[in-house]
């Protein structure tokens, strides 16, 4: 089990429609992850949550987060572009 395998699994779910349909045909979560394991992706529920947790904390909550304290407005959503150490 590893986060890396979870990331690879989700990447394939995004890009391979037949694979996605096959996995989602299973009704419950445990069966889906068992099938994923058979397909070579050994990962846990927690690891799947981890794959999207950084996204939840950052990109998908941009409005709520509002950037960081010192970033001047010029920072292009990346941070730290200002030579003044913002």
């Amino acid at each position, binding site marked *: 089990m590893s986060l890396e395998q979870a990331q690879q699994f989700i990447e394939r779910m995004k890009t391979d429609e037949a694979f996605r349909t096959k996995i989602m045909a299973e009704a419950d979560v445990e069966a889906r992850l068992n099938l994923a394991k058979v397909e070579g992706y050994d990962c846990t529920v927690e690891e799947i949550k981890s794959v999207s947790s950084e996204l939840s904390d950052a990109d998908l909550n941009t409005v709520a987060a509002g950037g960081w304290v*010192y970033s001047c407005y010029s920072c292009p959503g990346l941070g730290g*572009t200002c030579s003044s150490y913002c």
Partner: protein
Amino acid sequence: MLWSRYNTLFRSKKTGRFCYNSLSNSLIELDEKHYALLEGCRQGQDISCAQDNRFFVRLREKHILLEAGEEEGLLLARQCQRQANCFNSSTLGLTICPTLACNFRCPYCFESSQQSGKCMSTETQNRLIDWIKEFTAIKHLSVVWYGGEPLLAFDTICSLTDRFLALGLSYEKVGLITNGYLLDREKIRQLNELKIDSVQITLDGPAEVHDTRRMLAGGDPTFARIMENVAALMDSDYAGLCQIRINVDKNNFESFLGLRTELLERFKGKKLYVYPGHLNILGDQAYDSCCCLNTQEWVDFHLELARRHGMLASAGLHPSYRLDSTCVATTHQGFVLGPEGELYKCWDDVGRPALVVGTIHRQESITNPVLWARYITGVDPFNDPECRNCTVLPICGGGCAHQRLLAKYHGRKEIQYCLPYKTRLIDFLEGYIDSVRTRDICTALLQPGSTPAEPLSWRVISPDPALHAADRAGEVTSQITEDHVAS
């Protein structure tokens, strides 16, 4: 109906078809039929006959299609809002350098006064308090402690904070920018009392890299001691956020991810944020600017972090709206205060006499009104026809005021002050869309009995969770309408 100059209609091999409008900062995913419809609009076809159509209504809401003159009106309103923000008199925003002395000798530092031993005198501190009182309309005082190395003048920070708190103003958003070397347990213990809610510490990579670049004045290494102090901070009852900025250039960017991972694992569960900082040499520092990542390389670095490692900057890949944003340089009550009471408009100007705009020691504190006005009004992107017509103006906001000032008034035409959205907008949006897909897939996967959502003919994708949810709900409802469901 007119096609907005702020639209970007694009087809992505990986993620589909989209229309993005920077004025509303909105992204709409389209099926082929709706993409073709908008392509027609872009080329001047009129679809105003479909005004009761839900899709059309949404295009109007998002300013993708406008009436003649409507866009100028919207811009005027935004310009007015920006000016109101620039001339807001309720807040005094101060970045205070209690000293310009520094115990480090980083080769890329833009300041040139590290060897100055000057700290803010009692006379200047007294005058600062009186000067603040002269801003009779202020309700909020916001302070960032900066330098030099501000912890070399920690007593000044303590004494001035006591006096700021006694002013009866709302005292908030207090930050400390430090190299971290002098942040010992005794100082950490006082951070909460000093109302400092964010501490920023800079590293340049792991010890073997950091110690060749961020060394003491005598050349001794600093990494181990800084890490001891970070550990003490993380182990303390400090209530604020610790931000570790890791400076990145061509020489060390490969070590960024490893150090970030190590820090986050070591201090798991703590209020710690680790992010890359872009070394950008604009002055005459004795550092080879060829080592710096250029804008395109900097963008590639971030997109790669997102694509391969799922790491996103705090503001994410979705553009932020910047049309009415301001910074300390562009607000009339924003100043950087040097230890002798001299006033600057930008952090980058510290220690440069030619860029002093005034002094707190004079009754009329602005002594260089032209420079002051250039920062506040002269670099206003609304006054620049090229900016007004630029597709990404609303999410660029004209770029960095300091860089813009150098380019416009100091002959530094080589400075690229535009934000990278100008050339890389679609790359950012594709990265964002990919992150949305990841989240959607993960959510569906962990929901028993769920199946992947049916493809819609169009949908609005928003970084705001509330808006995103509302829009998705709206689209589900609208599936009953013929023109909205993928055929």
